């Protein structure tokens, strides 16, 4: 996994609440391999492009100052709905490395950590303030620093955020989580031995035919 330490980059505001993962990447693209040329073009496809493939000028990422943004500042419950990890893959393919939100869909939130994207949760008023700043000064940068746990806005004001120490460490080092868990093999095996006794009914079941 690609580590995340700090990032200073153009940020794009998305004001609509409850942006679901179907909108981030429509179902018909889910069977496309991640290595497909032009994968980033599937991002927000049906709100970003017209039927003939031309860009919709009203969509934020089609506006010159926000094009190629590496940070999204979004509204509540962004990434709700389907568990499709492709929603994170397609953001990553476009170049997005951090999503700043008042709240995120739980599965999307976890999927971000697994792919080196930093999800930042800030109070709703602070996030709305950031979006207003980005609208007022299109193309301005935000600075996101995981080590100091701060988002610095265009006025130089630092907004501190909470991040779980377990996830922080993994992001900073780009840790392979499966390797970490496999190092717990003795504990897993001990759990399984205990479970065979205490929950014998669970392993007793077998298909009748």
């Amino acid at each position, binding site marked *: 996994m690609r580590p995340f330490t700090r990032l200073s980059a153009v940020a794009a505001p998305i*004001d*609509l*609440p*409850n942006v*679901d993962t*179907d*909108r981030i990447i*429509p*179902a*018909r693209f*889910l*069977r*496309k391999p*991640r290595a497909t040329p032009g994968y980033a073009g599937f991002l927000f496809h*049906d*709100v970003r492009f017209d039927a003939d493939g031309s860009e919709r000028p009203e969509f934020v990422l089609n506006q010159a100052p926000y094009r190629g943004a590496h940070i999204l500042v979004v509204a*509540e*419950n962004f990434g*709700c*709905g*389907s*568990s*499709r*990890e*492709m929603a*994170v893959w397609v953001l990553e393919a476009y170049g997005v490395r951090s999503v700043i939100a008042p*709240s*995120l*869909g*739980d*599965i999307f939130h*976890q*999927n971000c950590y*697994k*792919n080196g994207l930093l999800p930042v949760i800030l109070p709703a008023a602070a996030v709305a303030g950031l979006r207003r700043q980005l609208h007022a000064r299109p193309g301005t940068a935000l600075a996101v620093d995981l080590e100091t746990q701060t988002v610095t806005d265009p006025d130089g004001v630092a907004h501190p955020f909470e991040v*779980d*120490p*377990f*996830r922080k*460490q993994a992001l900073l080092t780009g840790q392979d*989580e*499966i390797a970490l*868990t*496999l190092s*717990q093999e003795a*504990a*897993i095996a001990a*759990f*399984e031995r205990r*479970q065979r006794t205490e*929950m*014998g*009914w*669970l392993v*007793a*079941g*077998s*298909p*009748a*035919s």
Partner: protein
Amino acid sequence: MPQTMFEKIWSRHVVAEGPGGHVLLYIDRHLLHEGSTSAFGRLAAQGRRVRRPELSFATTDHYLLTAPGAVAADPEIRGMVENLTRHTARQGIVHFDVGDARRGIVHVIGPEQGLTLPGITLVCGDSHTATHGAFGALAFGIGSSEVEHVLATQALWQKKPRTMRVAVEGRLGPGVTAKDVILTIIATIGAGGGVGHAIEYAGEAIRAMSMDERMTVCNMSIEAGARTGMVAPDTTTFAYVEGKPFAPTGAAWAQALAAWTALPSDPGATFDREVALAAGEIAPTVTWGTSPQDALPVTARVPDPGAIADVARRESMTRALAYMGLAPGTPLTDVTVDRVFIGSCTNSRLDDLRAAARVVRGRRALVPAWVVPGSGLIRRAAEAEGLDRVFVEAGFEWREAGCSMCVGMNGETAREGERVASTSNRNFEGRQGKGARTHLMSPAMAAAAAVTGRLTDVRTL
């Protein structure tokens, strides 16, 4: 100290403690489908093996076509189906594959096969996994990286969610179903109201429900943003599980019953949040917008964004109504539909098909209407009762089991601008096809919409 059911199951499955309140949680059952195949590929690329293949079970549901006997023309769709067969065979994982009557929607067949049991942890790379919580299991949806993690380790690093109890007290009125209950709950707490929470559904109305109905309620927990949803196991649960193919038998059954009886939340257990609804106030419900929280009694009118003070909410409602092609103030029962879909992991079980057939019997569908049973076994059971003939004689299409038009991954979608009365779980923009307009409702209400051609209060038929 009194414990909630969630806490009992959680603490029983902690393998190790990690930093920041994370625990390594053991996973008893892992369900797989065609969407899980990229995880197998990455696992193999790392030279890792499936740690406990006998605890994973696979089925083909998301990508398979549901027209009887149809084979996908699209090579990518065919590839998704074939990949799962190849990977599960290589790893020695039981796979309910094409041609097996036990094949069906992953959240339908888990319970049907007795793989879903009270007190267990169960995960699947699908957001509707909370369905299995209806049995008093801790069941939640995960992403593809987590699927790979479970295959390799049979465990997951998890942070404990907060708890919420949603109590539905009193009795449901005639024509009011589990779907109306969960849509009303989501409308009450909001599409993000459950984020970070494990919900326990309780109260007289939930206790009175069949397992099929409890699964409908738990299934849509994710539409309120919740990590999981669950119902305490009781005699209804035990009667359902007993005799299922993979369920414990003999002495193990007696041991299981003793363990399961101790699962419900202790008297005095506290929840981080409590929500109460009166069952008697819940009406047959339909959605009007593009989020499952946009739900109202079918007797209501399309809401007016102009009456909403909050700017963001007003703009989001305006956008939703423009997408849905609806004018504020229109009675919902004046809204005509172009297509009807009865199916999905929310509402494709035998109880659902029976409820729809009761409305359809002796009537005629005025618009194209599909019935997609949740599994091959449900299809067979429905045919044994003659339900297929009721649907076919009324002009419905009686199809093979699968996810079909709920998610449209297999290409079965509505056309642009078409308005669909659907028993599925999501009315998101483009969910049932680019530009398709979805109204969510119960199977009986969808059947009523099919035979009248409009959103209809099933109580008036």
